């Protein structure tokens, strides 16, 4: 399994925006740089496949495995960022 040379230890809002844009693009009506932390992904224009693609990209880049229902349980950027960081911390503990 190939992973990043140095595994990143924190998943930021900027990471999420970059990955969303690369993997699924952005709706012209939505400003990803605006106040969207608590807006749910559906309202941001991302359907289930867009979230599947986003989850896959996060897993690859951060060398983690997310729960299948991570987007169901975390429907906003703020909640998702928290969930991903929790997974990252858990992975770091296992590695250590």
């Amino acid at each position: 399994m190939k992973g990043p040379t140095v595994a990143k230890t924190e998943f930021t809002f900027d990471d999420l925006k970059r990955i969303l844009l690369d993997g699924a693009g952005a709706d012209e009506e939505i400003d990803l740089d605006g106040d969207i932390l608590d807006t749910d992904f559906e309202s941001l224009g991302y359907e289930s496949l867009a979230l599947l693609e986003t989850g896959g990209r996060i897993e690859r880049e951060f060398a983690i495995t997310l729960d299948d229902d991570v987007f169901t349980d975390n429907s906003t950027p703020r909640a998702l960022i928290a969930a991903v960081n929790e997974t990252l911390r858990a992975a770091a503990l296992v590695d250590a």
Partner: protein
Amino acid sequence: MSARTLVTGIGVAAPSGLGVEDFWAATRVGKNAIGPVTRFDASSYPSRLAGEIHGFDAREHLPGRLVPQTDRVTQLALAAADHAFADAGVAPGDIDPYGMGVVTAAGSGGVEFGGNELRKLWGRGAKHVSAYQSFAWFHAANSGQISIRHGLSGPSGVVVSDHAGGLDALAQARRQIRAGGRLTATGGFDAPVSPWGWAAQLAGGMMSAGAEPERAYLPFDEDAAGYVAGEGGALLVLEDEDSARSRGARTVYGELAGYGATFDPRPGSGREPGLRRAIDTALTDAGCHPAEVDVVFADAAGTKRLDREEAEAITSVFGPRGVPVTAPKTTTGRLGAGAAPVDVVSAVLSMREGLIPPTTNVELSPAYDLDLVAVRPRTASVRTAVVLARGRGGFNSAVIVRAVD
């Protein structure tokens, strides 16, 4: 008797032009659009020429959300659909969505997208494959995306029968209108200029190995030695005549007046190929005598056997040198499912201008008794046009397009 089915909007994405006006400006004078393959490194492939659409940036034509989830062929189809609906003057909400559908033809599907994802699958692992591979490769993706974007909730679908599909789609669209639909967007697209697309076409054994853009694809010429492949297609807005009149459609390009399709007999049977019967059937369907036909847009396969079969079918129906024949696709290469819809656009524009676009580069073989419009365009009053298309494996289709006063 059904009301007529009219062409009220057209959109083109072809190597010779993106948009109807650019396309026709190039096509009417036979401007070459075939050149070396630039979309991938084809230097190690036996066929290195293509009709490519240059300068098309999907981000200028599509919403940001659609770009990462679509193959190039779908991006071209969506751009042409935007043009066609704008041309028809139909916006979402103007017509009951359930009265509008879309039927397109596709040959290769999203073969560039699919090829890239397969490369990721074998090169980097399953986790690297895009979630959008689930539908981006699919032949029906063009119809699906057009239907979503333009709010077409009525009967829709896709047909796959190689080049013939470009006409079979139009016929299916007309059926939907005759069954009570008001409007059906229809046409066809292919975009095979990618390693996987090329591999598939090369396997067919009929691609030209020529290196000179103006000598590589020479249908009906003594030197015919295969075809050059190209990318693109066209989308037409077809409408029920009453519906078009009642909403005050601003342009009526013509009528989709007749259609016929046949399948070739088993190879080696010695029976006549099916193309002549397809033409006869389409003429009968249109209630049209062969003498009324002003031009035939040929399939122009570009191999000796297929050229001979097509020339014999045309001569058998219209008589020796009985009708002007042209194949403007010599400027673009063969566009797969996109070829015939582009020819239908050329046919209605020939009517509009009174000019038959030329078959470039070809010197007619003395073996064919055709009145080929070669090298230069020909001025002519065009009221009725026949468009022919054949698909690998034995598909033959013919469409009659007629001027509407």
